[in-house]
């Protein structure tokens, strides 16, 4: 049996990160163990933003070059992005309940706009399943993929623009990171390992799309 190096490395990196977060990273005094949710929540949010940003880039270039590989990549990255956004939307409330006293705040722009982002890319996947013509499917979904990604800077900046309970950025901000060094190392490792997991998922999903399209072409020719 052939072992692919990327999923193996990504899986080992994620496992190592979880072990480091659980056993070798200090507990935060005021929040207790719930603070460690950041090591899976923040990387999932980072990867979701990266995935949807790359969907927009690939879609934009697709509309220009009409290269099917870009459409396949956008399709793969969107699906993986939805998985990571789902993790964001589940782990966030699980942190919020013991810290805020509530799982969710409907008035909070950061939270609600993240749900909108999830819906947009779920719609993207549904749209792809609903349009039969490959050319039209790729064109329509490319437009939706680009428009959806416009929410990303809005979501990131929403904590500065609106009243919110969501914590401010820890890393992506003008000043230095606001975490003790042991926690910062764990957070950086988790960002790297979940980015590797994203790459492994996208590569596997892309390979599936290639095989599926080849099978569809064979069926069409037969």
């Amino acid at each position, binding site marked *: 049996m052939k072992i692919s190096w990327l999923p193996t490395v990504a899986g080992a990196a994620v496992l190592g990160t979880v072990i480091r977060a*659980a056993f070798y990273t200090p507990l935060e005094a005021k929040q207790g163990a719930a603070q460690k949710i950041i090591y899976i929540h923040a990387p999932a949010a980072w990867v979701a933003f990266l995935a949807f940003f790359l969907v927009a880039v690939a879609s934009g270039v697709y509309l220009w070059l009409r290269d099917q590989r870009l459409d396949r990549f956008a399709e793969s990255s969107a699906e993986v992005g939805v998985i990571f956004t789902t993790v964001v939307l589940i782990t966030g409330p699980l942190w919020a309940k013991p810290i805020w006293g509530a799982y969710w705040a409907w008035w909070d722009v950061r939270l609600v706009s993240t749900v909108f982002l999830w819906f947009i890319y779920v719609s993207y996947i549904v749209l792809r399943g609903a349009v039969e013509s490959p050319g039209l499917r790729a064109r329509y979904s490319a437009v939706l993929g680009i428009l959806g990604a416009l929410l990303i800077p809005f979501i990131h900046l929403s904590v500065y623009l609106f009243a919110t309970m969501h914590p401010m950025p820890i890393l992506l901000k003008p000043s230095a990171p606001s975490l003790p060094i042991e926690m910062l190392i764990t957070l950086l490792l988790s960002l790297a390992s979940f980015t590797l997991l994203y790459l492994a998922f996208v590569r596997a999903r892309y390979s599936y799309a290639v095989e599926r399209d080849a099978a569809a072409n064979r069926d069409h020719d037969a």
Partner: protein
Amino acid sequence: MLSNAMQPRTGITMPDTSAYYHVAYTVALGIYAAYALSLYLRRKRLRAK
């Protein structure tokens, strides 16, 4: 696990929020594992056709 824990200052009790932490990690890793399995099964089904 608690040997290297940051000790709370005197008078502050560290809250026990470990249940939320365990559920969050279990659910998140479960979702990633389920997605990996779905990719494997979809590919297997496609090749079996």
